[in-house]
């Protein structure tokens, strides 16, 4: 079965102009989000994952700019759209929820009105009464207790989890084709995180929308996503189906990420393995693989030349010199694994 992608991103480049120079936050990223599916974008802070999502909606602010590439929504090119055309897409066809529900809602406007504004913008013909009914329905949909009363509440009267529910209600008000969720559970307690993820999953089933889920938490990815793209230094290092990536990571960075997740069954004496070092300076990005300085398997070529992106299976690809036919097999985690399993 061939899946039809709702969102196709090709060779996306995004930069920010700062007083120190051009920060090349995203340096040629390509991926698809398929209809009704969830793509997880994983990476540490500064890997370019949030910038990728803001580029899609053109919410980069005055200093940010998409410098090259193409973003197509249902076959329609977004990068050439005017501001006004883009506004019709935001909220209506692509909606977004953000990391911090404590600061993402306007403190001076009742929550019902903030959700209602989404409907007001995209469905001007809707009467005030209809809109109220619809907001009420949305509040019920995201399981906010006493919605009639809660509609009139202000953000400070809600807990973090409840506010994130309001954000979800707002995002889903116009039944968008694509929901971009930028670390929506990072600022929440673990128990609340789980509730929000379950809610998102059930709403996705109900409405059939696609989700682009940005996170640094591989555990969350395992729970929610169909496919994963691992980002580092403004590039997608590896992209694969969820099962494949957990069974057989094909990039040293993915390996590193997996080794740094705590495991319930693991020997208590065994320490978690953090990835040493810090992400590259994106004003002067390295000409080779951005992960090379932190990679335990780095070879000479890694710092000198950008690795090619190679298919490592029918539905997966990875960007690493270790996968090159000429790379030594000895001490090579990717080749050993490949041969071990094959």
């Amino acid at each position, binding site marked *: 079965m061939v899946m039809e992608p709702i969102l196709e991103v090709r060779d996306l480049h995004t930069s920010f102009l700062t007083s120190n120079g051009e920060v090349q936050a995203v340096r040629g990223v390509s991926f698809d989000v398929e209809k009704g599916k969830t793509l997880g974008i994983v990476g540490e802070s500064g890997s370019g994952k949030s910038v990728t999502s803001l580029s899609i*909606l053109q*919410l980069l602010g005055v200093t940010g700019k998409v410098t090259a590439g193409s973003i197509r929504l249902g076959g329609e090119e977004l990068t050439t759209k005017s501001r006004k055309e*883009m*506004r*019709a*897409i*935001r*909220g*209506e066809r692509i*909606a*977004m929820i*953000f990391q*911090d529900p404590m*600061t*993402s*809602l*306007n*403190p*001076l*406007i*009742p929550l019902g009105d903030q959700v209602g*504004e*989404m409907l007001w*913008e*995209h469905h001007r013909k809707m009467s005030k009464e209809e809109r109220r009914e619809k907001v009420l329905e949305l509040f019920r949909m995201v399981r906010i207790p006493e919605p009639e009363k809660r509609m009139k509440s*202000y953000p*400070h009267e809600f807990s973090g989890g409840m506010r994130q529910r309001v*954000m979800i209600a*707002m995002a889903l008000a116009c039944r968008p084709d694509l929901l971009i969720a930028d670390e929506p559970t990072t600022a929440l307690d673990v128990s609340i995180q789980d509730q929000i993820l379950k809610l998102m999953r059930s709403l996705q089933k109900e409405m059939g929308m696609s989700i682009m889920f940005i996170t640094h938490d591989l555990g969350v990815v395992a729970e929610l996503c169909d496919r994963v793209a691992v980002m580092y230094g403004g590039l997608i290092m590896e992209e694969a189906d969820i099962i494949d990536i957990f069974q057989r990571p094909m990039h040293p960075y993915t390996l590193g990420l997996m080794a740094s997740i705590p495991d319930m069954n693991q020997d208590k004496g065994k320490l978690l393995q953090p990835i040493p070092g810090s992400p590259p300076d994106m004003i002067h990005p390295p000409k080779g693989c951005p992960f090379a300085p932190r990679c335990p398997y780095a070879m000479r070529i890694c710092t000198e030349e950008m690795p090619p992106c190679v298919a490592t299976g029918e539905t997966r690809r990875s960007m690493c010199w270790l996968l090159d036919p000429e790379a030594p097999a000895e001490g090579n985690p990717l080749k050993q694994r490949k041969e071990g399993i094959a």
Partner: protein
Amino acid sequence: MTRFLVKRIGMMIVTLFLIALLTFVLMHAVPGGPFTSDKQVSKAVMDALNEKYKLNDPLWKQFLDYMRGLVRFDLGPSFKYQGKTVNDFISNGLPYSAKLGAITLVFVLCASIPMGIISALRNGKWQDMLVMALATVGVTIPSFVIATGLIYFFSFKLGWTPVYGVDKWQGYILPVIAMGGYSVSFLARLMRSSLLDVMGQDYIRTARAKGISETRVILKHALRNALIPVITVLGPTVANLLTGSFVIEKIFAIPGMGGYFVNSVTQRDYTTIMGMTVFYAAFLIAMVFIVDLFYCLIDPRIKYD
């Protein structure tokens, strides 16, 4: 709410009492008195004067007598001007000061808030630079220098406005600009930084992600939030402007309250010093109180109970 009001008004009265007490003590701590002068007055006359105005009473008794008058809004007779009371001074001076102040206040609000908004929205562009340059001039140059400059150009060189007096409406133009200059600059700066701060907030990004127009983002989501710090400083600013500026009133020969206040201090006119200070303090406290009530309306996070 009722509990808040009772508590708050109680605190206002205590504050006012302390201000009155402090002024009274300081005033009497300075050597000399209202009847000390260059001309030698005979001891008998001096004693009679002191007796008449009860200056021979112990200080605590004088203070109690004063407070007794104050609670009946009687600020007492002037020690210097026969037959005049401090209430007369205030009722003569206040209308002039308040009218000038009210016009200045309107000017300040109409100028500073749009200036701050334009400056923030055109951050780093020439509009911003121009507004900020003007604001720096307004904050740094004293009002009497601005007033003198304005008179030189507009009254003396161009002849567009009267040099002094407020008999004609044109007479208000220069004093309003000179008096409001500082507040305009200060509030424009505050408005600018506050709006810039708000525009960088997450909820503005949320609003933009909804697809609403930038105009609506600013009007509906940013401005109300950005006005909160401006309203905070508005209380003292309003009190300041409405009670007048001695310097400006002097330069433009406007018979407001400021003249009476300064004269009373140089002449050691005890009751007038007390009366003016207490009146000004009461006005300031009331304005701050009103601003606090306004907060409630604009910011739902603030609840008084």
